[in-house]
């Protein structure tokens, strides 16, 4: 499946982001190198906008968003974050970026999840997407003895 075909199945903001990413690849004239732009700056008056958190997923954009929707760890954050996606240079897969929206105070579950360090929460969500796509699962730590008592011998 080519990139433009995948774009057609993506809805809403995610679709727009992927369309932009795909456009950067498909509309470039042959042989013309274009300077790779920074991720979009935040809108508004905040002089210290939240930084983009970015991971590179070693898969094509269509595998990062196989059904055209943002993966669950990002969907969970609702409208509290802005998400962008673009192909990584050198066939290194897909750059997936997210940033807490300046001034958009999260509510409900998103507020609980974001807590007082939204950047870290966003970063963890991106890592979960990356693990799910590359490793097929989100790796979980062993539970510590404090979390559960010793049972009868195996």
């Amino acid at each position, binding site marked *: 499946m080519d990139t433009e075909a995948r774009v057609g199945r993506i809805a809403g903001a995610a679709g727009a982001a992927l369309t932009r990413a795909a456009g950067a690849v498909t509309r470039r004239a042959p042989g013309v190198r274009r300077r790779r732009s920074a991720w979009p700056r935040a809108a508004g008056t905040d002089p210290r906008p939240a930084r983009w958190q970015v991971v*590179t997923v*070693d898969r094509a954009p269509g595998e990062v968003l196989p059904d055209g929707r943002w993966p669950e760890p990002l969907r969970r954050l609702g409208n509290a974050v802005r998400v962008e996606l673009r192909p990584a240079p050198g066939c*290194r*897969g897909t750059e997936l970026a997210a940033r807490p929206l300046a001034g958009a105070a999260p509510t409900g579950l998103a507020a609980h999840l974001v807590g007082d360090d939204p950047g*870290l929460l966003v*970063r*963890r969500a991106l*890592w979960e997407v*990356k*693990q799910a796509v*590359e*490793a*097929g*699962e*989100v*790796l*979980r*730590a*062993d*539970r*510590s*003895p*404090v979390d*559960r*008592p*010793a*049972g009868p*011998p*195996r």
Partner: protein
Amino acid sequence: MRALCWVGDGELAVRQVPDPELRNGHDAIVRVRQSATCGGDLPLLAGRVPFLAVGDVLGHEFLGEVVEVGPEVRRHRVGDRVVVCSSVACGGCWYCRRDLPSCCDNGSADPAVAEAAWGHPTAGAFGRPRAAGGFAGSHAEYVRVPYADVGAFTVPEPVSDDRALFASDAAPAGWMGADLGEVRPGDVVAVWGAGAVGQLAARAAGLLGADRVIVIDAEADRLRMAERHAGAETIDYRLADVPAELRERTGGRGPDVCVEAVGNADAPRSLADRFAGGAERPAAVREAVHACRKGGSVFVLGEFTGFVDAFPLGAVTNKGLTVRGARQHGQRYIPMLLERMARDELRTEHLATHRLPLERGAEGYALFRDRADGCVRAVFSPDAPPAGG
């Protein structure tokens, strides 16, 4: 189950802890038959690595039998005899797909925390603080193995447990030092450290075609082992001027490849360094950099936990050296190493100088730390009777 736990202040004790459980679909549970001490554990015991918690289970070099598998495991079944790579890697990220599994992006249950330590997350590790992945160690009756299809390897029938055990960590580490140090036929290779990793680096250099291999240490027992099992020449650094000796033995050129396998030794800091807050000086790395021939290669295998001072960067640039290091890429080397073990090209049994039941784990670590009684590695067997030894 019983497990050897860190109980604070450099102390270890066997405690009753919960059995491991499958936490992901790609997990397996392994009943441990043998689990070895490693130099990388000593900074933990000495309290030089933060975040170790009371009750954490140590150990990362082990072999055992699969007793349970998750629904996504394809390569292993209950009953398989497996040796498990000491680091945890996913097999699917950019680094794993390019044969750099100890750089794995997805080996930690909390990569965002792991990023803080080194700038980027690296492969997870058994028996380390939770920030190193979140996986209990192997000095226990059972251990959970994440990504079992990637990190557990069935041991071929002719290879004994005693030999295959060291395919988990020491053998791939040693092999990597020679391989990524780019040993070529005809080279002269110098190895600092005659512990298990140093001896196996020396053996690997020989198998890769080195003309001469010179091992440097101060323990006579270990040097004799390097001569006997790796076919190496030796230098006792207490009795010789090592740089002068190496110049003399290499026609004034210096070794083509230098492998540091000493690790984070407790080198004494000078009074001035202590007053000024200076870090320790990596004595073996410094010596290797000075000794190496121009344009040669220095590979750092020792597991350094933080910063060092007084690194001779000028010698690196002026002599055009390549300095490289890594945690061992076991998933890349273990199948090949098991084949060599099966062909009797690679023997490791002699490294287990002390075999003890798990209950005597604290005693085993004391022997290993102090290099007492000729100890190279202490190996624990959870199913051995407590009174054995």
